């Protein structure tokens, strides 16, 4: 139902295409990558037929790294974002729909986590849990869920006041039914958060890698950025190892953003208050 309308919207088409494209690249990585991303060739080559985007300072094929790197980047990005969203929404919904007392308790708990500084917490947890990208995902979920919980809670609280929600309560709908009814209404918010969180996750993953807390045994767009920076390849004049992954992150972010925007547009059309002139 809503999908029909997104296709009509240009922004939505762009967003979905980007998502689809990157998803496809990630899935078909073994077939698309021309070379083994770990193998060292002649370092610092420019664009050529052999190496589509050249090589970095260690001689690794940039194009192949990009292709393979999309897998982990997307996994980490979308996975963390999804995890944050799910956990945050659950807490937010529970808080908004339960008794004021329960609401207070949940919110205080959320606040506590919220007030702990992010990066130190990230570092601490990463150190505790050790290396490995799954841990990176867990760490990010744990630090970011309170933000989502607050946003969802305030949205649901305001939705609760709307006449159509009161109407369904008067009709006799129970709490579970109410949640089912409310979810499409918080969807635009969730999707908007999703884009922010995904980009955040990808960048933070790079930060962690940068600090040596990531997983050095995997290649992601973030680690590509790290290595490009650390190896100082730009000083030699080879910009490709930085521009390529950076561009990928950007395009992906823009695509997600437009998708969320398109969904918000559809939602706005439906709920548009037609004020009499």
């Amino acid at each position, binding site marked *: 139902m809503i999908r029909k309308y997104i296709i009509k919207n240009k922004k939505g088409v762009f967003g979905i295409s980007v998502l689809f494209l990157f998803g496809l690249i990630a899935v078909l990585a073994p077939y698309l990558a021309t070379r083994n991303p770990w193998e060292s060739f002649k370092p610092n080559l420019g664009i050529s037929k052999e190496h589509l985007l050249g090589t970095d300072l260690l001689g690794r094929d940039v194009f192949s790294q990009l292709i393979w790197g999309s897998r982990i980047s997307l996994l980490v990005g979308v996975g963390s974002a999804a995890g944050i969203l799910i956990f945050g929404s659950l807490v937010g919904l529970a808080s908004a729909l339960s008794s004021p007392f329960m609401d207070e308790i949940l919110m205080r708990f959320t606040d506590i986590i919220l007030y702990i500084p992010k990066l130190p917490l990230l570092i601490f947890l990463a150190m505790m849990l050790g290396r490995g990208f799954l841990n990176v995902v867990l760490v990010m979920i744990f630090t970011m869920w309170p933000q989502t919980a607050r946003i969802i809670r305030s949205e649901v609280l305001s939705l609760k006041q709307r*006449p159509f929600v*009161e109407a*369904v309560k008067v*009709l*006799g*709908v129970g709490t579970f*039914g109410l949640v089912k009814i409310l979810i499409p209404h918080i969807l635009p918010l969730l999707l908007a958060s999703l884009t922010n969180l995904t980009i955040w996750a990808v960048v933070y993953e790079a930060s962690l890698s940068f600090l040596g807390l990531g997983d050095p045994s995997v290649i992601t767009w973030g680690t590509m950025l790290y290595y490009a920076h650390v190896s100082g390849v730009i000083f030699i004049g080879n910009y490709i190892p930085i521009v390529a992954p950076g561009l990928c992150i950007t395009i992906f972010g823009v695509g997600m953003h437009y998708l969320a925007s398109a969904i918000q547009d559809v939602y706005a059309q439906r*709920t*548009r208050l037609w004020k009499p002139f």
Partner: protein
Amino acid sequence: MLQKIDVDYNNTILDVVHLKVYFPVRKWGPFKRGYVKAVDDVSLSVEKNKIYGLIGESGSGKTTLGRAIVMLERPTDGKILFMRKNLWELKGHDLKYFRRSVQMIFQDPFAALNPLWTVFKNLSLPLFIHDITDKKEIQRLCIQALTEVKLAPHYLEKFPHELSGGERQRICIARALILKPRLIVADEPTSMIDASLKGDICKLLVELKEKYNTSYLFISHEINVAQKLSEQMLIMYLGKIVEVLTTHQAGKYLHPYSKLLMYGMDYSIPDEVILRFKGEIPSALTPPSGCRFHTRCIYATPICTTQEPPLVEVEPGHFVACFLYD
């Protein structure tokens, strides 16, 4: 009207007993608290097959009273009885039965419908909730409901934003009626409808009442509309009922505030008559002492400032809360 000793349970749907609904308001310090006394000691019986007009301006408490009856507001004191049981003690099967019996129509028909759903989904929701699952039956009932409010079956596929205000209100009425309730609380159903179309909605409500023997609690600030529709009128001011009368006695309002409301609607009455009543509606946070209306009343006497007038029966079925008639 007042708490009878022998309430006829076969005829009464709901009994409101000394209901108080207060909303706490926190002032600047954490300790200072005021209460907005939206409904302050109101008692009434809602009987079968009768249209009640609940009139008041904003701040009178009429909307809060209506909402309390459908359990959207919790009583601070007093109780509302349905089938001899306190509303908030109903559980499970009884609660579901209450929901089938008492429904509500809201003021803003657009806001009262789920904008992401088709008319069909909006209408069929109550059926799902009350365990009607057969698809054919649901379809049949929805089309029947639409026909009752004089809309063609093809409206089922439309979305609320595609309809006009009058059509949306009809859908809300259809939704309220689909379970054949005994009482519908209508909160300002005609306020957002064009003047040229109010008549149709009123006519519809009356027709449906005759057909399904539903009672209505018609809440409005438009006294002239409510008058034509109701069999019994209740006028509220700042949380209290100030007059009750049947519409045969309409026009013979006794309470000064009721008279004021009547005059207000009628532009042929010169300004001077109305402007004698001074002031504006006081805040419900700090209502005046004694008779709530005394600060504006041209007939006020010293006793009006200190004591609250009780609701007395001046003729059969006509009650007034005013010392002029005590």
